[in-house]
């Protein structure tokens, strides 16, 4: 097997802000052409990790190589080939849609006429050509997100970093963005994605890394992780006051694990379980569905509400 230098190779990252650890012994490897998702609750350290890769947060410890080069020496050159779509909208409100792209291209030393051609191409790709002379304030949330994505591609990056690319968008706008990201992926662009939309991660990512409080807790291919750590099916039973006594014994012989939370019982099944099919007769509103990334995420980061630490 051919060993290629990973696009991102970071190891032993540590960072504390005011004595509060936000990143703790974190390693990250992103291979060429892959989409890696960082999954974690708010404040888990996803954005901090991205900022470290961009040299905007200096790690207390650890080392980061991007495109095989140490970021502490070659940051300017490395960033020439990275495109970033940040979580917070930082489009330039003093400029129009087209100007936003052209001015941004200038930060990458892209000549004006090339920039203009590329900008128009990107506006077309993201269905924004009708808006090119519009000021930013007149764009909808979905249009702004698409423009942020277009801006991230103006330098034809080898690596794109998408920090919560569809946060706060309606389903239509979200699907449109996923479609475009899938095209980029098919073209072989390496993608680092953060999200807390499971559907997004399941659809786009080749590998997920679940982090909580700056620590990696799980890493692997989404389907594989779900099968291994959750199971194939999940049965959800709401507690209608009857209690779940004896239920666990009934499912003896099944490869099942249980979790009770907020008056709801979750049964995770790792294999066939004929007894489970009969639960519908004893309880009302029983739901049986395939296990998904959300189950994995919630099992590992807890079904409790994790407060935003920041």
């Amino acid at each position, binding site marked *: 097997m051919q060993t290629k230098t990973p696009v991102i190779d970071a190891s032993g990252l540590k960072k504390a*802000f005011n004595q509060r650890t936000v990143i703790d012994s974190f390693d990250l490897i992103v291979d060429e052409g892959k989409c890696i998702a960082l999954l974690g609750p708010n404040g888990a350290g996803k954005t901090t990790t991205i*900022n470290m890769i*961009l*040299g*905007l*947060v*200096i790690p207390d410890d650890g080392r980061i190589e991007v495109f095989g080069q140490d970021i502490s020496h070659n*940051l*300017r*050159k490395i*960033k*020439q080939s*990275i495109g*970033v779509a*940040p979580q*917070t*909208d*930082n*489009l*330039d*409100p*003093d*400029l129009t849609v087209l*100007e936003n792209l052209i*001015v*941004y291209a*200038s*930060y*990458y*030393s892209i000549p004006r006429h090339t920039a203009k051609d590329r900008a128009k191409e990107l506006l077309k790709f993201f269905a924004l050509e009708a808006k090119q002379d519009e000021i930013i304030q007149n764009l909808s949330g979905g249009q702004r997100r698409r423009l942020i994505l277009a801006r991230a591609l103006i*330098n034809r990056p080898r690596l794109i970093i998408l920090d919560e690319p569809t946060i706060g968008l309606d389903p239509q706008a979200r699907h449109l963005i996923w479609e475009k990201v899938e095209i980029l992926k098919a073209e072989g662009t390496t993608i680092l994605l953060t999200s807390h939309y499971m559907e997004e991660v399941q659809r786009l990512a080749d590998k997920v890394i679940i982090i909580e409080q700056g620590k990696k807790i799980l890493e692997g291919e989404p389907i594989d992780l779900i099968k291994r750590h959750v199971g194939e099916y999940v049965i959800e039973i709401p507690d209608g006051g009857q209690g779940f006594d004896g239920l666990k014994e009934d499912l003896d012989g099944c490869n099942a694990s249980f979790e009770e939370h907020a008056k709801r019982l979750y049964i995770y099944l790792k294999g066939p379980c004929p007894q489970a099919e009969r639960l519908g007769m004893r309880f009302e509103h029983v739901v049986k569905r395939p296990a998904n990334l959300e189950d994995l995420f919630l099992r590992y980061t807890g079904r409790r509400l994790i407060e935003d630490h920041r």
Partner: protein
Amino acid sequence: MIKTVSLLFTRVWLRNFWVWKKHVRASLIGNLGQPFLFLIAMGYGLGRNVPEINGLSYLQFIAPGLVASSVMYSAAFEATYGSYTRLATQKTFDAILMTPVSVYDLAMGEIIWGATKGLISGLIMLGAIPLFGIVPSPWTPLLIPILFLEGITFSSLGMIMTAKAPNYEFFNYFTSLLITPLFLFSGIFFPMESLGHTPRMIVNYLPLASPVELSRALCYGYLNWVTWERLFILLAYSVLTSVCASLLVRKRLIR
């Protein structure tokens, strides 16, 4: 630090210039209104009743100082309210820092942009002086680099405030405690000689005193060794403040 400033600072400058071009009229009137009004009110109004100072009419005496003060106001205003808006409200700096532009390129671009706006105001004031019957000396073109250095000093001081500012109200300290006192006590409206020895020594070394003196000296063509001392002070101020501002901007934006 030198290693990490590149020509990319010009892109930051150009971005600001691009935006400025769009609202050029409002921007110029906003910056120039005040010194012009002072020149008219003090020079014509008050000046009629003030005796000559060093052989200059009161209008002639204050005009070069007001050129210097217009540079100060424009540069300081741009580097505080303007830069802070780009830093905190619009997150423009965050967007720029995702690109190959380094934080020092960014700081340099912003400082030089503030200085440029100062210079533009100063040049317009300078160009308007003949309208008030003042004939500038042949030395006057040398004033251009001086006003630019003054612009660097005040836009750097503004950037220092911006790097420290938690909100817009913070700039009230800067305006009330630094800019306004400098405007009133840097020898624009009365000759330094009328101050006592100690206050004169202090005022002499404040950042606006040198540009005011240099402006007057070049406008009326009396140059001597004091001019060189003034130039040195101004140069020192512009270097120190810009280095300090760059470091503080880095501290604010890189964690």
